[in-house]
């Protein structure tokens, strides 16, 4: 559990990560959480920046802007 906490935007493709925190305004935080990205959620990075960051979370595939991906802090687990 000692992996460093980094923004989602910095994760290389193919890696599995666990969300640690969302550092965004209320509206965006709620929207992300309701779409299934919560602290503790496991997800997989399919495509890193440049361009939208694509992740797979709870069976769905989401595209996030770089700014958004920068606000989601994660730990790489695999």
């Amino acid at each position: 559990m000692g992996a460093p906490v980094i923004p989602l935007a910095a994760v290389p493709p193919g890696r599995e990560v666990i969300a640690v925190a969302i550092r965004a305004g209320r509206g965006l935080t709620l929207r992300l959480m309701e779409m299934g990205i919560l602290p503790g959620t496991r997800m997989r990075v399919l495509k890193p920046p440049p361009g939208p960051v694509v992740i797979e979370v709870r069976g769905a595939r989401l595209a996030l802007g770089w700014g958004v991906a920068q606000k989601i802090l994660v730990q790489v687990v695999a």
Partner: protein
Amino acid sequence: MKVKREIVVAIAGQPNVGKSTLFNRLTGAHQHVGNWPGKTVERKEGYRDFAGYRIRFIDLPGTYSLSALGVEEQIARDFLAKEKYDVVVNIVDASNLERNLYLTLQIAELTPRVIIALNMMDLAEQKGLRINVEKLRRRLGVPIVPMIAVKGKGIEELLRTIIDVVENRIEPQLPHITYSPELEQAVDEIENIIRHRNLHRQLGYHPHWLAHKVLEEDFFVLQSIEEKDPDAYSTLTTLIEQIGKRLGGPPSVAMVQARYKLLREICAPLIEKRPVKPTLWERFDALALHPVVGPFFTLFIMLAFFVAVFSINTGFPLNYFLEWLGYPDIAVTLESYSLSGLLGEAFSSLAESMRIALADVPLWVQGLICDGIIAGVGAVVSFAPLIFLIGLGIGALEDSGFLARAAAVMHRPLKPLKIAGKGFIPLLLGFGCNVPSVMMCRGLYRECERRNCALIAGLVPCQARLAVILAIVTAIFSTPLAQIAVITSLYVVALLLLWVIGVLFAHTLFRREPSAQLVIELPPYRAPFVGNVLMYGWNLTKHFLKKAGTIIFLLAILMWFSLSYGPAGFTEDPSLSYAALLGHALTPFTRVFGASHWVLVLALITGFIAKEAVIETVALAAGTPSISEALGKLGVTPLQAYSLLLVVTIYIPCLATIATIWSETRSWRYVLLTILYMTGIALLLATLVYQLGAWLGF
């Protein structure tokens, strides 16, 4: 069969779960598309007669949750909280169960009468998921109907289940979420205040539900409490702050976490997953979303789609291409057999035969019928095939999953306009025609995006404007280099303006709105379902004919009147009409931007009906079919021509676009603003260019 009773069923679900497919399957052709009152959000309603019942289906907007983050969520939950209905059918994507059931839990807070339509069973299978439906049914306490909506599987059973619930043979009982003791206590405290202040009556919600929403700091709920009872509002906000301190974070976060925790507990034991390899198409996403290749790829697909649609509709641009290749005959044939060619033919021969049939009636009646009414109907109908074709194309691109990728990759350039990447679709459509472009704005996520997009959509130079530009440019400028330079400069000016004005509106009219954040689901690629696509095109066309059609028709009659009546009564000579009079009166002013002949002013006035009318008017009033001759007769210099082109490109969107802006935004302020800013900028810019050019000696 005698209809026993009418029942109302709301259909709720997250985006991309097959909700439209299910709705189309359930209602067939018995559907009606309108807008939710006062909103630019589509409202679909339809019915199905089954087992002696008339089941009326209301399609709620597709939303991930019922937290009122946007208009869609607000509409969906206000319907569920305030309207009368018998059952909610919650359509759920089996291949993405946990997140889909999040919405289910939120619906359960509003009503227990829920049926789950567990759709995409085939897709779940492909993804290697096996769901124990029976256990899920027991665990959730509601009827669950497994379905494959595209194949029509499960429809009958769903209908039977609806009747079972209505006749109380089944009583759905969704599980209640128990939040942590701290949260439960907070809800109680808030509910006490709400009951004490009678807020639930004033707002028309259930007090327990309202307490949850207050604790979640729901924007719309708190806003309406502030309006109704400022005292209670400040008491409540202080209380929430205290609770937040006790919890060590905002309560809303804790509540979402509690819901997802429950869902994990429910779902994890019921789903078996075996690993599957990513499909070829999924690898393809790396290309479609590539920062450099992606936009080109997207533009390429859209361009191919345009060329196809517009060639079918008017022959353009394929006819130019054929001519260029040396097949002028085929080009002409293509043009006359294109949809708008055939329609135009039909309407003009209808007008001609009416003119002959009405030879004995007064001339003004003949004129009213042939040039007013028939031309008015023609103006409306001639847009219909284009709208239908565009509807088909967009429907197919959307159904296949392509549009989601396009929206993701086009997000950046539109960010300063506070419009999400999806806004690129309506804007791009504008190059063909501004009417469907304004209509497509409804697909955007937030009200402010839809409005900003509709406001600037008229600035995209449409095909009709291109026709005018081409005609005038080829008549006035002789070298190909000059021609290309003029055309390119007009497009650059228009698109730059679009961007600048869009940014301007974003920071004035919509300054309170945050900029759009890219968070979009990428549904799997799949072959579009023909039934959905056809229904999409048909509904769009019907909506256009009904809503914008009437206004276009009325305005066309008005234009006919001003062109056929003058101080001396009815006239067949437009130069004696009120419109010409207006042209004469305006000429002293229009001189500043080079429109020094009244015919040019008249042409600009008729250009409001349809942009291509500019050319017709100039030719007609100058009394020669050749544009270059006509412009020569009027003494138009290249500088004057250029400034005139600037005006034609930017000034007032055509009548049909105006009508559509009204029918979509339902706001005269927006219509007026569009007309004023476009005309104002066009005249200002043209004056500047003309005066500067004249000063430089052009």
